[in-house]
C-alpha cells in the first residue's frame, strides 16, 4: 500500500524551497498577464459604450447590462419593458446543460460502476476505451455526430433499412441533438470521478447490508450512492460547467432555434451584431454563473472536510 494517504505530505522534501519563487514566477506572469488581466479588461469593457462595427468608445455606460434586461425600443427612448430574449437564451442554456449532465449521469454512472468492479488488470483498458474518443478533436467529434444523425444520414438509413421507422427521424436541430453533442463532448468528466469513488468504495459495507437482508437496489440507494456522492457531484459539475458555455455542439447540432450562450457571445464579436460591450457583459454573466456553481461546490467540500 505504499504511496497512499497522508504519508506523501511528510516525506516530500523541500530541497527546492530556496528557489521556489523563481520556479513558480513564470506561471504567475504568464497566467496573470494573459488571463487575469484580460478578464479584468473584459469587465471594464462591459461598462463601456459600443462603437459601431466592433470596438468601444471609452465612456462609462450601463447600456450593455441594461440591454440584457430591458427593451427600450429601436431608438432607446421608449419606456423600458422587460426584455426576455437574452434571459431566455441563458435559461435555455442552463436547462440544456442540466439535461446533458443528466444524460451523462444516466449512462456514465452504470459505466463507471461496471468498470470499477472489473478485475484490477482490465480496469485500465476499459477506462482507456471510454477516454480515447475524448482526445479526438472536439470539432471532428461534433462534425461526426452531425454526419451520423442528419436527416439523410447513416443512422436514419440504418433504421429505415431495419424497418424500425418508415420516415427519417428528425434528430438534428433539436434540443436532444444538442444534449447528445454535449454528452459526447464531456462524458469522461462524469465517468472518471465516479469511477474513482466507486473504486475506493469498500464493498464490505454492501455485504453487511446484504447480510441484513437488504436487496441489491436498496443497497445501491441507501449505502452505495450516499458513499460515492462526492464523486457524482464532482462529475456533474465537471460536465455542467463546460456545457453551459459550449459553442460547437449547440452551433453545429442545434441549428438557429437552439441558440445558446456560446453562440450569443460569439455573434457579438464575429457576426454582424458587433456589440463588444454587450458580448463582454454576457461573458461576464456566464463567468459569474460558473463561479457561483464552483463556490457552492468548494464551500460544501470544505464543510465536509471540517466535519
Amino acid at each position, binding site marked *: 500500500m505504499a504511496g497512499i494517504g497522508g504519508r506523501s505530505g511528510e516525506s516530500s522534501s523541500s530541497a527546492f524551497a530556496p528557489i521556489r519563487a523563481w520556479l513558480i514566477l513564470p506561471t504567475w506572469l504568464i497566467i496573470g498577464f494573459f488571463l487575469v488581466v484580460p478578464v479584468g479588461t473584459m469587465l471594464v469593457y462591459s461598462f463601456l459604450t459600443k462603437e459601431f462595427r466592433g470596438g468601444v468608445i471609452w465612456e462609462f455606460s450601463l447600456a450593455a447590462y441594461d440591454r440584457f434586461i430591458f427593451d427600450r425600443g429601436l431608438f432607446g427612448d421608449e419606456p423600458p419593458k422587460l426584455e426576455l430574449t437574452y434571459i431566455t437564451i441563458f435559461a435555455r442554456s442552463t436547462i440544456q446543460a442540466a439535461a446533458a449532465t443528466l444524460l451523462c449521469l444516466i449512462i456514465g454512472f452504470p459505466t463507471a460502476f461496471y468498470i470499477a468492479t472489473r478485475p484490477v488488470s482490465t480496469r485500465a483498458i476499459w477506462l482507456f476505451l471510454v477516454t480515447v474518443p475524448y*482526445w479526438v478533436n472536439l470539432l471532428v467529434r461534433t462534425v461526426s455526430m452531425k454526419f451520423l444523425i442528419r436527416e439523410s444520414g447513416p443512422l436514419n438509413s440504418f433504421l429505415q433499412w431495419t424497418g424500425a421507422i418508415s420516415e427519417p427521424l428528425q434528430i438534428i436541430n433539436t434540443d436532444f441533438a444538442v444534449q447528445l453533442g454535449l454528452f459526447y463532448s464531456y462524458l469522461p468528466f462524469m465517468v472518471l470521478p465516479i469511477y474513482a469513488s466507486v473504486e475506493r468504495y469498500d464493498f464490505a459495507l454492501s455485504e453487511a447490508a*446484504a447480510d441484513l437482508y437488504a436487496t441489491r437496489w436498496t443497497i445501491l440507494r441507501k449505502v452505495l450512492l450516499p458513499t460515492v456522492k462526492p464523486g457524482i457531484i464532482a462529475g456533474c459539475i465537471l460536465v455542467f460547467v463546460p456545457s453551459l458555455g459550449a459553442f460547437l455542439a449547440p452551433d453545429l447540432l442545434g441549428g438557429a432555434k437552439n441558440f445558446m450562450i456560446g453562440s450569443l*457571445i460569439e455573434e457579438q464579436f464575429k457576426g454582424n451584431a458587433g456589440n463588444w460591450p454587450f458580448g463582454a457583459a454576457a461573458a461576464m454573466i456566464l463567468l459569474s454563473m460558473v463561479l457561483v456553481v464552483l463556490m457552492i461546490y468548494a464551500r460544501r467540500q470544505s464543510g465536509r472536510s471540517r466535519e
Partner: protein
Amino acid sequence: MAKISGRIRRYPGFFPMTVLCLILLYSPLIVVAAYSFNDSLSITLWGGFSFRWYLDVFFGLEADKFRDAAWNSLSIAFMAATASTIIATAASIGMVRGGEFKAKPASFALISLPLMVPEIVTAVATLIFFSTIGFARGYATILVAHIVFCIPFAYLPIEARLKGIEGTFEEAAQDLYASRWQAFRYVLFPLMAPGVVAGYLLAFIISLDDFIITNFVKGAGIETLPTAIFGAVKQGIKPNILALSTLMLLISVGFVTISYFVSRMGVKPGGYRPSAAIRKKKGV
C-alpha cells in the same frame, strides 16, 4: 461469502449501459472513417471503396489551404506544448518540492484558472485584451493564448508523478554534494520524465484541439485545422472533410496511445515506488 460479494457487485442493466455508452462514443467516429473511403461525390450514397478523398485532401483544390492550416496547427501545438511543459515543470517542482508557503493555495488556483474559466470567456477576454493593447491578431496571439491554457494540462500529470517520488532521492544526492541543479538534472528529472512526457503530449493534443479561443484571437487570413474545418462545414459536410477528419482522428488516437503507455512506465498497481523501479533497472 463469495456468492454474496459477487452478487452485490453486479447490477442487471449496468453492462448493457456500458455497451450503449461505448456504441454512442464510437459509432460516429467509425461511421465517418468508413464513409471517408466512399468513392462518390455524394456523402449519402455508397459508391464503392476508394482513397480519392484522401488524395483530394493532399492534392485537390483545397490542398493548399489545408496544408497551411495543418502547418499552423502543428507548429503552434509544438511550441505551445514545449513552452507550457517547461513552465509547468518548473512550477511543479516549486509547488511540490518547495515546502509549505503562504502563496501555495493561490498559486494552485492560478495554475488551474484556465480550467475553471469557460473557454468562450477566455476567448472573449483575450480578444479584448489584445485589441486594447493594440497588438495585431495573428500567429503570435494564437501561440500566446495556447501557452496559457496548455499550462494546467501539462502541470497536472507532472505534479501527479512528482508527488509519487520520494523526496529522499534529491536529499541523498545533495548530501553527496550534488548541486541543486545536478540533483534535478541527474536524479529528479529522470524519475519525473514519464510525467513530463505525458504532460507534453496532453498539452500538444489540447492545443491541436482548440477551436473557440483560436477562432477569436486568430484574426483574418490565418487558419488552423479546426477553424479551416469549421469554415468548410458551415457550407455543408463534403467528403474531403470526412477524410481530413479521419486523419486527425488517427493522429489523436496515436498520441493518446503513446501517452497512455509512457505514463504507465514504471507504475505498478498499488502506487509508484521509484526505489523498486531503480532496483529493477540496475538488475539488483
